[in-house]
């Protein structure tokens, strides 16, 4: 009894087979798949099962008081349902939590693919010839030794624009030279799309695959995978090096199933690296209690301090926003801003207000576009803004992290709104002054009353700058 309770409460992966025979099917390696996701005929699957290259595992664990879906780790009773199943003629339980990736049903097994595929060892895979700063080099060295050790975890706490991706290069090189399999996971599709060309350029001879909701590549048979955290639901004991970018971001931050999946996707002996600019309370607590080793990079790669946000009180803000307008004062500031060379990033709390504002500013002859999560042309619009094809980009919190524009001013309208928490505000402020040619930028939070989140954000940015100065 005690054992079952413990098994239920802890993340238990002992059901994943420990024997991993070698084979030559990269697309099955370290996967946890439904039958229809395996692109082979029944005869071949039977053969693979006989050789235990594929192993059937129970898909849903049952306990006297509930269930757990082994693909997504869901245990919530309202996310399980029963259906009359025509194939087996019984009422079967299925998981509603990961239904987007195909139905996991009680009576059908999941197929675990052995992780015994031998990945090729690359010689001198890294063709990047940039230099790391002293702080970056120090962090990079620590990560290399973590990869060499082959187990353990490390958090890289680096300010926005510290050059987190470049810090990884030596560690990635080390892993690829040893023929280890790497996964770089991030909660955001935009970030995956942006990282792929950058990494491919630096590692031209390595097969790098990007996996996200509607990615052209779906096989997942590369030694180096960049994926959204959702894609990890299809992996089990697959990776020797697991890198999770933006650990604190939505939806990873408080989605249990993604934590479950990312933990399962790493091998029992794997090096795990977390990257973040704004650790959440839980991580900070682990850092303080010395349970989570941390590398700290308080300075941007160009050595300039982070722009500190200015808080501007605008009591009439809500009244104007309700009408879909901006207070004349802010409008005037935008007009002034438009005469400078910098582009403008305007953050608004919701999609509806963002669209209203876009049409409001369009009427006043600004070159404006708006993007939000449900925008089908999101990637194109962001690309066009980066190429300076228009001047003002209006957005919601989706662009708070991971995207880089060389020279922008950042205004947050209604910064007191609940969607702008401390992490979001720090990230938003971090969009300004990213390029060494223009290392500053105005960050202004317009609000109708300071919130703790705003003050905490300003304080944490000041603290980073202070640490950066000391070095």
């Amino acid at each position, binding site marked *: 009894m005690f054992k079952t309770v413990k098994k239920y409460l802890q993340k238990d992966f002992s059901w994943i087979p420990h024997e991993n025979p070698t084979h030559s099917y990269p697309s099955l390696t370290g996967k946890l798949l439904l039958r229809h996701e395996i692109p082979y005929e029944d005869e071949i699957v039977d053969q693979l099962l006989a050789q235990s290259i594929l192993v059937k595992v129970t898909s849903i664990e049952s306990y006297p008081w509930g269930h757990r879906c082994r693909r997504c780790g869901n245990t919530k009773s*309202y*996310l399980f349902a029963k259906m009359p199943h*025509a*194939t087996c003629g019984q009422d079967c339980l299925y998981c*509603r939590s990961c*239904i*987007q990736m195909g*139905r996991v*049903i009680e009576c059908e097994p999941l197929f675990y693919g052995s992780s015994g595929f031998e990945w090729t060892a690359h010689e001198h895979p890294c063709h990047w010839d940039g230099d790391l700063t002293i702080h970056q080099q120090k962090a990079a060295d620590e990560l290399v030794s973590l990869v060499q050790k082959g187990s353990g975890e490390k958090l890289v706490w680096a300010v926005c624009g510290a050059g987190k991706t470049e810090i990884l290069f030596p560690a990635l090189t080390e892993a690829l030279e040893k023929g280890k399999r790497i996964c770089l996971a991030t909660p955001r599709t935009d970030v995956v799309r942006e990282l792929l060309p950058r990494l491919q350029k630096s590692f031209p001879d390595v097969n790098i695959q990007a996996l996200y909701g509607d990615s052209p590549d779906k096989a997942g048979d590369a030694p180096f995978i960049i994926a959204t955290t959702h894609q990890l639901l299809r992996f089990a004991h697959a990776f020797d090096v697991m890198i999770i970018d933006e650990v604190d971001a939505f939806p990873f931050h408080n989605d249990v199933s993604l934590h479950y999946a990312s933990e399962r996707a790493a091998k029992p002996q794997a090096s795990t690296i977390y990257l973040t600019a704004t650790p959440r309370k839980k991580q900070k607590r682990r850092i303080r209690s010395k349970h989570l080793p941390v590398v700290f990079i308080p300075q941007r790669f160009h050595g300039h301090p982070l722009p500190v946000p200015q808080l501007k009180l605008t009591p009439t803000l809500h009244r104007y926003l309700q009408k879909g307008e901006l207070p004349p004062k802010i409008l005037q500031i935008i007009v002034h801003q438009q005469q400078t060379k910098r582009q403008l990033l305007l953050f608004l709390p919701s999609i509806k207000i963002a669209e209203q504002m876009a049409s409001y500013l369009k009427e006043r002859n600004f070159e404006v576009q708006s993007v939000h999560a449900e925008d089908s042309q999101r990637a194109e619009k962001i690309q066009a803004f980066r190429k300076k094809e228009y001047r003002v980009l209006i957005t919601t919190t989706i662009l708070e992290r991971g995207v880089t524009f060389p020279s922008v001013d950042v205004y947050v309208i209604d910064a007191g709104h609940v969607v702008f928490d401390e992490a979001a505000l720090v990230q938003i402020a971090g969009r300004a002054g990213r390029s060494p040619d223009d290392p500053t930028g105005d960050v202004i939070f317009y609000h109708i009353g300071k919130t703790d989140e705003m003050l905490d954000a300003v304080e944490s940015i000041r603290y980073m700058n202070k640490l950066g100065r000391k070095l």
Partner: protein
Amino acid sequence: MRCLICHVETIPDVTWVTFWKPSVQKKICQECEEQMDKITASFCPGCHRPGHEGVCHDCEKWEKTNPGLLERNVAAFPYNEFNKELVARWKYRGDFVVLDAYKEHLQNVWLSSFFKGRQVLSVPLSSKRLDERGFNQSEAISYALEEEPFSVFERSHSEKQSKRGRKDRMQSENPFRLLHPISDPVVIVDDIYTTGRTVRHMASLLKEQGCPSVSSFTIFR
């Protein structure tokens, strides 16, 4: 209670009425219900196309080519973006219980359609598709209406209708085979009425074998 669609917790208002007589728990939240929409005011009497006064263009065309083949179609919900997404989740992803979200209104429409008492026919799936999906959507709807569906057709495996263009669909061959004739008026229950091709394929077979009247009942139009 959680909303069946968006999993948001729904908390019913406490009024004096609900205090004395607890209300029936809603399966979905207010917001999702609004987005689901309902076909209420004006619709085509032939096929229930929403927002249309009088007989619509499609039905006129059908009347010219196949007069009187289908008596009428009754639908409960418009096939809008929100519903499209839900159908994808229900039918193609296989989230069976999503149907319960439509159940209550569906039963009301069923009662007001005066189809009750007629023989309910289900649309068969090919065995391959049934294996893939795990359930027959047409039978599932019939059970949601608390009716016992009859299966008198057989279907050869063919491309999904939803993957085809309109022209292609209209020219498609009849994939059904009638197993035994029926001599009472019938109603065919299905999920979506798009062009009306599927139900008319079935209706033509039924009529040939002496069925007096064929109507159809769908969730969406």
